[in-house]
């Protein structure tokens, strides 16, 4: 099987910022149990910066690792910067992801976007994140992957 990078394995084995902020300012929950990946991000915001961030994820190794790294990347960022983190940046920060797992990084960025917009909307402000793909039931996270996926049925 195609391998996870050492950094993916590190974030999977020792995920950073796991949990739920009790009195969170914003909460994002994305993904779908039918698809096997569900992620929840809670944030504390101070001066439009992400002051604290935690996650919970049900999903594969890549889903957990991308969740973990995105919390590290976002911590201390302005809300605008946080919603601009791309799935490509997440994958790069992890030293790459197998093609078949690229969609997991969408989940991570979407979770962050959802939490930021939740914070803004709760405060009566305009959401800034744009559409959150992975919560759309018609979204196919595999559509932009390389076609060389891995084998089935062992």
């Amino acid at each position, binding site marked *: 099987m195609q391998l996870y990078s050492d950094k993916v394995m590190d974030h999977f084995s020792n*995920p950073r910022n796991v949990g739920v902020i009790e009195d969170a300012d914003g909460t994002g929950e994305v993904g779908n149990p039918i698809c*096997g*990946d569900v992620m929840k991000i809670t944030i504390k915001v101070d001066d439009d910066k992400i002051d604290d961030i935690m996650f919970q994820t*049900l999903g594969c190794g890549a889903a957990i690792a991308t969740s973990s790294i995105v919390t590290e990347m976002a911590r201390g960022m302005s809300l605008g910067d946080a919603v601009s983190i791309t799935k490509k940046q997440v994958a790069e920060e992890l030293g790459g992801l197998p093609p078949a797992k690229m969609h997991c990084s969408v989940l991570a960025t979407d979770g962050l976007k959802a939490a930021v917009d939740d914070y803004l909307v709760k405060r009566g402000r305009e959401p800034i994140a744009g559409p959150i793909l992975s919560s759309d039931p018609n979204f196919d996270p595999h559509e932009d992957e390389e076609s060389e996926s891995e084998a089935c049925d062992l």
Partner: protein
Amino acid sequence: MDHIVYLDYAATTPVDERVLDAMMPFLRERYGNANSLYALGRDAYKAMEDARERVAASIGASHPGEVIFTSGGTESDNTALIGLATGGGRSSGHVIVSAFEHHAVLEPAEWLSKHGFDVTELGPRPDGLIHAEDLKAAMREDTVLVSVMHGNNEIGTIQPIRELADVAHAGGALFHTDAAQTLGKVDFDVDELGVDAASFSSHKIYGPKGFGALYLRKGTRMAPYMMGGGQESRRRSGTQNTAGAAGFAKALEIMDAERAAETPRLTALRDRLVEGVLGRLELTSLNAAETDTRLPHIANFIIKGVEGEAMLLHLDAKGIAISTGSACSSGSLKPSHVLLAIGCPQEFAHGSLRVSLGRYTTEEDIDFFVESLVPVVERLRSMSPLYAKIKAAHEAG
């Protein structure tokens, strides 16, 4: 890795040292091409025929020529599906395969559906079995071929092949079974089962990878799939793999000789495993648990609120080699087609684990596995955004 607890024997097995010994002469001095006329070639030919006779004897074939050696279970399945459907130049007709076949059967069936044939995927019931009456209902006037696997590679249920073959034959169709997971592990006799063709794989029974066989009942028309020099009596071309044949025949002999002792040993280990897992973990179940006709070495669990790959990776870190039930490792979107076919809800199918035991599995391995699994599941559930809800829903009934 210092100590590996290998619990994925259904994926592949190590080559038994006795099998390797049987192969070595053909990787060394007995290197002739089995189709050459001179002494070295005749020696290779005899070795192939000797292996063929031993395999034929083991599966109850009437003629050694009914055994065709191939490059593996996949090739045997491709050959059977396409070769039997298109045998004698046929270019249309109805083909039935079960919905929880291995992809080595499903994909050729799909190929047939794009090349003039009508294909029906017949679903198993939640008990993990294909029922004869369901097959009867699916049969058509023009059904030419039915393929139902003998033992399922994910959940281990054994299908009522004799009854199914009788239904197929009553309707004038040929019957093929993929026996990659059952050969050597349960009694296997082509006449008792009444099959026209059966697929086998060497690396599931402590033989080498890249080798297998196809049983084809004498007189059955089949278009060869691998075309060329006309080896294997024109039914499978390609220079014959003598080391593979010698290894496969030896592997099967060992399975046969040891089965009477090995089956109860594996069954006891599996029961200990099932008890351990279900006893220690809440919201966990064994797939197709109600079915008695099952392989002794496979147990497939649904562990709610966790995802299979994550379990697998944590167990790997502890030296345990195991498979998710999920057939596709290509990402979590597609859970196992086998579990979906038996009606497992999609959100739980992602949380399956297939544990498969074998010749070198010990009680200590099972206990170590159970001890290791419990904290892994607890940890993953504790970081799941859904587990609390699942548990609450369960407790609410």
